[in-house]
């Protein structure tokens, strides 16, 4: 982990309220595992807590990385106004990303994403594909306007999409695809998105091979403040919980209480 000033290479609104921000800097050298995150200082002086945003893509060669985020509140709105040449104070890479060492060429991986939970899966899909793992994606979005990166993910494997209102692809929850995998039996399931989606994934698949990316409000981002805890399954001591920032954000479904 380092603190660094990164340069904005490019920023594009790729879907409604969804921004793709490309950053350049030495820090990229430290990035490796998919779904580590950056802890970003919002420019200005009144919003003092950093914003955690996952690294969606690592471009080691050009020392660049991509983050993709939705403008939720004041912080992300300010960040969305940055343009080429602006700088950003970031801390990272933080947390433990998705493990992939247990998979080998020919294995099957199912990637489940909901809304803004989709981007962190991009670098994962890329790395799995490069390893020769067969990847299938199941993504849920609110509506047609918010769908993004379908083409990009298609390069690595099949993409199944569902929208809440049916304005694009199938209508309803992404979970409907879990029963229609046509004999694709996952050796690992990776999920990122709202709690409901994570819970559905851990019910549908073996919780020992299902990896969930958790989200909690964060202050320090490095384990010191205990702001971002989540409950440990079968913990032995009252004070024993996980900190999403350092112990996660990725946990095996069997380790935690959702």
């Amino acid at each position, binding site marked *: 982990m380092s603190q660094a000033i990164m340069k904005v290479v490019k920023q594009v609104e790729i879907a409604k309220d969804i921004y793709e921000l490309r950053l350049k800097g030495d820090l990229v050298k430290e990035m490796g595992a998919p779904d580590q995150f950056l802890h970003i200082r919002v420019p200005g002086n009144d919003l*003092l*807590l950093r914003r955690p945003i996952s690294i969606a893509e690592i471009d080691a060669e050009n020392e660049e990385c991509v983050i993709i985020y939705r403008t939720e509140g004041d912080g992300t709105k300010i960040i969305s106004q940055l343009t080429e040449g602006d700088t950003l104070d970031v801390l990272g890479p933080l947390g433990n990303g998705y493990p992939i060492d247990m998979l080998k060429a020919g294995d099957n991986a199912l990637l489940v994403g909901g809304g803004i939970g989709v981007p962190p899966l991009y670098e994962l899909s890329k790395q799995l594909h490069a390893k020769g793992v067969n990847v299938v994606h199941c993504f849920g979005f609110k509506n047609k306007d918010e769908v993004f990166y379908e083409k990009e993910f298609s390069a690595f494997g099949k993409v199944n999409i569902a929208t809440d209102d049916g304005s694009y692809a199938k209508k309803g929850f992404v979970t409907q695809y879990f029963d229609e995998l046509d004999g694709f039996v996952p050796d690992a399931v990776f999920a990122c998105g709202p709690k409901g989606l994570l819970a559905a994934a851990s019910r549908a698949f073996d919780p020992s091979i299902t990896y969930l990316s958790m989200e909690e*409000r964060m202050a*320090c981002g*490095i384990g*010191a*403040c*205990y702001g*971002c805890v989540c409950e440990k399954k079968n913990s032995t001591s009252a004070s024993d919980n996980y900190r999403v920032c350092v112990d996660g954000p990725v946990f095996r479904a069997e380790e935690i209480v959702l």
Partner: protein
Amino acid sequence: MNRLAVSLPGLELKNPIIPASGCFGFGEDYGKYYDLSLLGAIMTKATTLEPRYGNLTPRLAETPSGMLNAIGLQNPGVDVVVSKKHKELEKYDVPLISNVAGYTVEDYYAVCERVSKSPNVKAIELNISCPNVHKGGLQFGTVPEMAAEVTRAAKAAATVPVYVKLSPNVTDIVEIAKAVEAAGADGLSMINTLVGMRIDLKTRQPILANKTGGLSGPAIKPVAIRMIYQVARAVEIPIIGMGGVYTVDDVLEMFMAGASAVGVGMANFTDPFVCPKLIEQLPQRMDELGINSLQELINEVKEGIRNER
């Protein structure tokens, strides 16, 4: 001579910069990023007799120039703190100020006795912002007699100096400060957080699972400065000032109000390197303001207070 050195009961500090309790864990996390021996001291996370889980999440919310937290005293209990957490910090040349919390006077007594035994614990910070379970949940820190009682218990149990951490959520902080001074406190630390709340407009419910939380950061600095200024004029024991310190100017403003050392809380989250940066930047700013040494500044402020009388 070290221009940054300050001297307080039990604490000969190479500089006045002290990460505030709860904002720095037991140092292990920040210890990965810089040498903790640089720091004046470390105020460790609140320690209770038994391990505590703390509150449900969300535990954090942001506010203009500040934040709310409702961690809820999560800690592994005094036995683990003494046997592991304090031990791990022995490799650094830095004194610990152990933040002690409890729900009964007996809790405080027991924890003070045990944390005193760690050789690197040079002082106790008595966190009296906890509800007293025997007195209908009234906070120890809001009633002078209760604050005095828990101070006396801590003093009886502790073998190191005791600094009482005052809550700002009171009508008359001077009255509380005087009561704990009379009860034997060696120093004060102030201020703890103001009680605040934020509501989520979509759910129409408080953002924090605990509903209310403690407000810290630059937003509360004017309240901290006022309270330190008033208390410094009413007691003789030294004050460790805190509340919204982000810059060297904030550090010096605390001294000019009457503090003898400074705690840094929320700023660690905005910039994990803020403490070493403050230590590095202090001498230049002192030059600009004609301050030879912090100990001299402390003495001048004290002299000024005597002349006001």
